[in-house]
């Protein structure tokens, strides 16, 4: 018996030496350890052995079997690893080839800038409102302290639909609409398209503005500056500063033009800011008490500020776009730059 076991072990070892693939090893396992395998056969011969010797040879046979199993398992692992390595190597691809996917489209730079403003302002507690583009003269001008045939109308060359209906020349008419409908505290921004009879390298007959309106008790020029400075810092960089210059708008008093430190050169002076270090970005002011009163808000109790910023101007600064007309040419090669 001992001899038989030694013989089996020797022949197994010889065959194991030759087997290298997972398949060959499996075949070997079946032949030695399988249901009809070598060990099963030998096991059957145990019945011919004397009863007292059975435990001894039984253990001997089992030990040999366990040993073979271990060796097989060991070699199996190695073989599997080797095979996987070979497969992965064979499956190697050129990862520099293009991906298989539908190409993404893009969002217009004007919409991108609008979305940035919307995010900044909503985080400051502002509501977003929108209003009609074809607007009554009454809202666009009269409630805003610009009567008919007033010289201030020269500032905004207007497209007329009828004597009383215009294409809004600014987003400010929504100021009036909001104040007529809502009680203070009011904090809204109003993005939208506006129209003026104008067409050259820096003016488009249609452009987009965001209007801002805050009405509450104790609103001052300092609040206006703080609010706009926060927005410019978030929009450009934390180092951005702003400055006020006196100006005139019929619906605000005092009125200011607002410059921010040039985001390109940081205020040192460059081509974009024409060497001044400052870029004019918007007009603003303290709400004229006449406008508050026109809109049914008691100007002896409440005050407020308003501002209007041109999206094209901000986008031109933000992206370094030299000519306003590029926005409306809609060349796919331009648009795809804004994926």
């Amino acid at each position, binding site marked *: 018996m001992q001899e038989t076991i030694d013989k089996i072990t020797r022949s197994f070892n010889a065959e194991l030496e030759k087997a290298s693939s997972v398949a060959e090893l499996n075949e070997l396992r079946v032949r030695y350890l399988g249901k009809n395998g070598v060990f099963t056969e030998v096991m059957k011969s145990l019945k011919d052995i004397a009863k007292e010797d059975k435990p001894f040879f039984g253990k001997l046979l089992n030990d040999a079997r366990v040993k073979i199993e271990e060796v097989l398992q060991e070699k199996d692992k190695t073989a599997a690893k080797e095979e996987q390595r070979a497969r992965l190597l064979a499956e190697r691809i050129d990862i520099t080839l293009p991906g298989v996917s539908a190409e993404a489209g893009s969002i217009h730079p004007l919409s991108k800038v609008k979305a940035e403003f919307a995010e900044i302002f909503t985080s400051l507690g502002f509501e977003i409102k929108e209003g009609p583009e074809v607007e*009554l003269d009454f809202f666009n001008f009269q409630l805003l302290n610009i009567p008919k045939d007033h010289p201030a109308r020269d500032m905004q060359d207007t497209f007329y639909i009828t004597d009383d209906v215009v294409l809004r020349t600014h987003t400010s008419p929504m100021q009036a609409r909001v104040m007529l409908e809502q009680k203070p505290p009011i904090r809204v921004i109003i993005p939208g398209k506006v129209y003026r009879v104008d067409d050259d390298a820096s003016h488009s007959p249609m452009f987009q503005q965001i209007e801002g309106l805050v009405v509450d008790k104790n609103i001052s020029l300092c609040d206006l*500056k703080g609010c706009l400075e926060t927005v410019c810092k978030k929009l450009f960089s934390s180092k951005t500063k702003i400055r006020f210059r006196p100006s005139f708008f019929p619906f605000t008093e005092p009125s200011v033009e607002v410059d921010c430190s040039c985001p390109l050169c940081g205020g040192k002076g460059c081509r974009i800011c024409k060497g001044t270090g400052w870029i004019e970005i918007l007009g603003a002011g303290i709400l004229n008490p006449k406008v508050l009163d026109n809109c049914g808000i008691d100007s002896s109790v409440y005050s407020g500020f308003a501002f209007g910023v041109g999206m094209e101007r901000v986008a031109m600064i933000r992206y370094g776009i030299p000519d306003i007309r590029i926005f409306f040419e809609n060349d796919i090669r331009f*648009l795809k730059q804004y994926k």
Partner: protein
Amino acid sequence: MKAPLNWLKDFVDIDIAPAELEKKFVSAGFEIEEIINQRDAVKNTVAGQITAIEKHPNADKLFVCTVDVGFKVVQIVTNAKNVYAGAVVPVALDGALLPSGTKISAGELRGVRSDGMFTGLEELKATDEDFPGADPDGVLILSPSIAPGTDIADVLGLDDIIFDVSVTANRPDCNSILGIAREIAAVTGKDVKPYAFTYQSDEEPADPVKVVVENQILCPRYMAQTVKNVKIKPSPEYIKKRLKAVGIRPINNIVDITNYVLTEIGQPMHAFDRFNIGGNHIIVRNAKKDEEVVTLDGKTRTLEESVLVICDLARPMAVAGIMGGTDSGINVGTVEIVFESAKFARDNIRRSSKALNLRSDSSARFEKGIDFSAQELGLKRALQLVHELECGTVAGAPVDIATDFVKERTVSFTAAAVSKILGITVKADKIMEILNGLGIKTVQSGKLLTSDIPEYREDLENANDIAEEVIRLMGYDKIKSKLLSKAQQTIGGASNSYRTDTAARNAAAGAGFSETVTYSFISPKAFDLLRLSADDALRNAVGIRNPLGEDVSIMRTVILPSALAVVASNISKFNKEARFFEIAKRYSPKAATVKTASKAAKNTKIPSQAELPVEEQTLVLTAYGEGESFFTLKGALDRIAGLLGLEFSYRAKVYPFLHDGRSAEVLFNGVHIGYIGEVHPETQDAYGSPFRIYAAEISLEKLYDKALEVKKFASLPKFPGVARDLAVVVEDGTSAAELIAVIKKTAKLLESIGVFDVYKGTHIAEGFKSIAFGLTFRHPERTLTDDEIAEEMTVVLAALKKGFGAELRK
């Protein structure tokens, strides 16, 4: 407003450099468009005296002159025939710049050196009026009293510095030299020098002119003054020089005086020849219908009744405030005049000027607004000039017909109110100092400050106006940044419409479309390119009364024309494929629901908004190029719908601008929201596209209620579903949707169904197609048996057979 420095100095001492003054101007609220140094117009050009002339050795028509230019002697070759030894002439030396813009350098002419060039009137941009009797074709011969070496700028009187100041609409008083001077005085801490009027009035004329103002609303003040013994002649040099500096052509002393006063004080004036005033009456009235007047520009103007005119007993002599007539004006023979100094209502001037398409310096001033004090001041200044120029005698006192006007107006406020507006504390003393410096006399009584508002500051009405005066002179750098420190907290956030638009935008970009922005106005011809019938509702558009051109003259009722124009322009730039989208409004001139703002102030009447069109937010998609089809676009639209949390359905429908067999309406919850399809080949051609174009346009407005809804959780199935495929052969015209509808109705255990293949060709008879569905069956409470599924499939097939003659594909 052009303000020459030397003129400003008549009213205020200026001892700072122009650049410094500009800074102060800007910080006080006046943009400087340009600082023009007149001397910059001419360089290196001096007066020179010709000492000798010789014939050119190599050219018959040329002369070689020896010229003393003061600091040296130069040699100039010239072809001018009017030069002679001893003549003083302008010499442009090497490197010279002339007012005409010409640059001169030394050179050789036919082998003889020339150190520069003599110049004539043209190169100096001078006229016969500047140098009477000058030969227009020859060299300009200057007065022999001019010393050689004198800078020609001085000879031409180009020695001023002109500030071109941009004046905002709230400060009409600054459209004058005096107004600008007052601002300079305020920002530099100087006083304004007052006028000294020294003219004397002679006795009243025997038959004084009578003035009748019939419409005092349009003419609140009319002053008239007769001047006798008028001698019409050219104005003295300093008047001419100043007028030219501000761009006004000198005419004669009287006309120049009116223009001088207009510029200096801002009060437009007019001078009538007294003997041309018929009936010795000046009547200010509205024009009669179709009344005519020939204005100074020589044109006959037919007038509307709304236009105010200055008439004599017979006819209009002038369009009030806009332009005088030729018949009643000043001419060389004029010996008696009547000066007019009036205030006309600015809105009427503006309307009349527009209606007549006639603008003048005068109308421009009136439109901006002129205060009640300027008529008297202007008239006095004109009479003082008559006196100084010795060109007439003031005859008696002026006629002055005026409505009652508030001569003294005050504004009261507290320092605390001003500080509250500004957000910084400004003491009463500081406020008074600033206002008094501006000529606004302000006194304190307890906490109350009271300002006497000068008549020329009609813009100052309340504490906000005062706060602006204070801060613009203190400097806006005094304003500190505070982030709404005293304001109440608000919640903020975006409306559902804004959020839906944003989600649609992101979804469309995610689906491979690039966003465009196009003008809201289009050409009415676009409707023809879309093949719309004459009575198509889309043709009913909102028109712009004053468009930039016909191609941008109506508000679009459909976005497609703009989208197709984008495709066309990209094709012309050799972009072979692209996908575009735009989110924009379309406008239909239907009466909108009237929104009444009931909380309006009691005295504010909100007009009806029924006139406003309906504005509908719309999403338009276009695609062209390789691989694009109806189905790629439909897939994209479904994907966008999915990202909005919605599902669209489609129904075949014919549109004039779409391919008859490849077009559909898009529905949401059974409601029409737009169209999708392949663009009609004729429309495609009309836009010059060699490629097929696919387009869809849907209303976002109709999705706002349902888009981005919060979805309720649905529990996941506990039992497995069973998938089966079903391929049937049907007539080609049968739509998948019809088949699916029947399957859904028949199969009780069906969970979902989709089309995975459509086949025509071998083994399928002509006129038929095979369509293959993937079906999933599921029972919520147990696992289905094979028998149950087989039963379902049998029922489905039977129904398809009955409804469509469908056969199971073999």
